[in-house]
């Protein structure tokens, strides 16, 4: 079967101009990608081995920029904040999204409204999501303060306090991206086979047994895909932090992307920032590929 379709594909290729067709069809897209993405990627690698002054390279420094990263307390802090942010946000999103998907599995009135409304957070411009949360957190005009005052309390301080600001950022991410988890996991749940669940019901298994012995094990691959997708995405989070806290107060919400941006555009350390971003790119790629390998093994077993 496999060989048959292969042969047919060769036959389809024909002769003359048709032989060059695949290359002609790939060429425009590849040209754009090579020019605007791949060349800059290579250029970034080159920049990462240089020292810059006022935006122009002044010396080759080899791997010094990369080595310097690991003794830079601000970089290490940004890395730690990012890891904390990603781990916390994605965990909450996975748990809440899974619970919500299980809840919505049974059709009932209002479910279409729920699904429609849940689309809103993830399609709103991230910059606007940050504005929404600034309006919630603001100590003078914010929703939390207004609610607190309506109940006889005082001003609520969120963005001025390091711990609260960090939690506030995680809450923003959870609000924005739990719906995505929910959609992926709901689709996964809906594609599970019915028979095992019928059998369990006949055997009189309780809801918790069904979940622990059937639903969860069968959902593990989908759950893994969803978590990997979100993790990769969360590592690059920038817009929301830039508008909500700009990394502050102090360094409490300064993610790696914000630190890199400031290093490049505020402090003009182009080479050092390039090394930082190359490192982050490698980390994310390593993460993605080990996740893909892991998933393949799960699929195979």
């Amino acid at each position, binding site marked *: 079967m496999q060989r048959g379709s292969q042969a047919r*594909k060769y036959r*389809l290729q024909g002769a003359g101009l048709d032989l060059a*067709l*695949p*290359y002609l*069809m*790939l060429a*425009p*897209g*590849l040209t*754009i*990608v090579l*020019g*605007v*993405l791949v*060349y*800059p*990627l290579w*250029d*970034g690698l080159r*920049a990462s081995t240089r020292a810059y002054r006022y935006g122009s390279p002044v010396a080759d420094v080899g791997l010094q920029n990369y080595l310097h990263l690991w003794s830079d307390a601000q970089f290490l802090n940004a890395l730690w904040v990012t890891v904390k942010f990603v781990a916390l946000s994605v965990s909450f999103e996975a748990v809440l999204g899974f619970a919500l998907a299980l*809840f919505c599995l049974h059709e009932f009135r*209002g479910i279409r409204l*729920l699904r*429609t*409304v*849940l*689309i*809103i*957070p993830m*399609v*709103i*411009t*991230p*910059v*606007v999501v940050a*504005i*929404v949360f*600034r*309006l*919630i957190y603001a100590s003078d*005009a914010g*929703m939390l303060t207004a609610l607190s005052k309506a109940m006889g309390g005082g001003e609520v301080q969120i963005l001025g306090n390091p711990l609260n600001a960090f939690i506030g950022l995680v809450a923003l991410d959870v609000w924005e991206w739990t719906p*995505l988890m929910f959609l992926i996991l709901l*689709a996964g749940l809906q594609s599970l086979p019915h028979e095992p669940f019928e059998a369990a019901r006949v055997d009189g298994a309780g809801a918790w047994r069904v979940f622990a012995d059937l639903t969860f094990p069968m959902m593990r691959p989908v759950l893994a895909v969803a978590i990997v*997708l979100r993790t990769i995405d969360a590592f*690059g989070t*920038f817009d929301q932090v830039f508008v909500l806290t700009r990394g502050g107060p102090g360094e409490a919400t300064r993610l790696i*992307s914000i630190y*890199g941006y400031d290093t*490049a*555009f505020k402090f003009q350390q*182009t080479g050092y920032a*390039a090394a930082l*971003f*190359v490192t*982050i*790119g490698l980390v*994310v*790629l390593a993460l993605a590929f080990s996740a893909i390998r892991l998933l393949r093994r799960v699929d195979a077993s």
Partner: protein
Amino acid sequence: MSNRLSRILTTVFVLAVVLLPIYWLVSTSLKSNREITQEGTLYPHVPTLDNYVRLFTEKQFGSYLTNSLVVTFFSVAIALIVGAMGAYAIARFRLPFAAERKVGLFLLTLRIIPPVVILIPVYLLMLSLGLLDSWLGLIATYTAFNVTFCVWMMESFFREIPVDLEEAAMVDGDSRFGAFRRITLPLAAPGLAATAIFAVLVTFNEFLFALALTATPRAMTMPRGTATLIGRIDTDWASMAAAGVIGALPIVFFALLVQRHLVRGLTMGAVK
């Protein structure tokens, strides 16, 4: 009965969590700054549209909107055309050294790398080409990003279409490209639409590159303009809220209109 009650309570709770923040944004945008800071009302007691009028008369939101529409339209349109051809080549042809599969994997790898990683060199590239603060610079950048996932998504759509139909067209005298254009492309239209919708969403919402590559209302997009505005007016909550509503309205409206096609793109093809 209690089952039904808990179902209703959960639904109401979820709706409230999602919609209250949005209610607060809209309600703040309809208040005056005096009402916001001094009275702290829970809904606009004296609703006003002044905040919106000011955005367009004093703050150039008209230009931002135009720039966003132009940049989004061209970068999505070009990426779709170019991406559809590339995806078709990868889905249908077997090249020496499995080159087509390597190209596909390569584009996926580029898609995985966080965009912020190439921000600096792209900025330097546009600087050297004199394309900073221009439509063209943004269009080039966004087109390239869009191509990487357009190819990836559309490839799977083309694979779902049986080869036999094209073979039949070619037996009838169509060229290979003619069969692609007349048979496969129309059949893949729903998939192309899903891809286009997702591309529009991502492009319209993009902020990071707009931040680095544009500096004046000549080329600033909606998210970029909005962020600039609120950077300058730290306590003008009313304008900030109105800017948020205007910034989000077109894309939320668009998304709700096409929501059936949205899910596959948002999940990078993980969900059909």
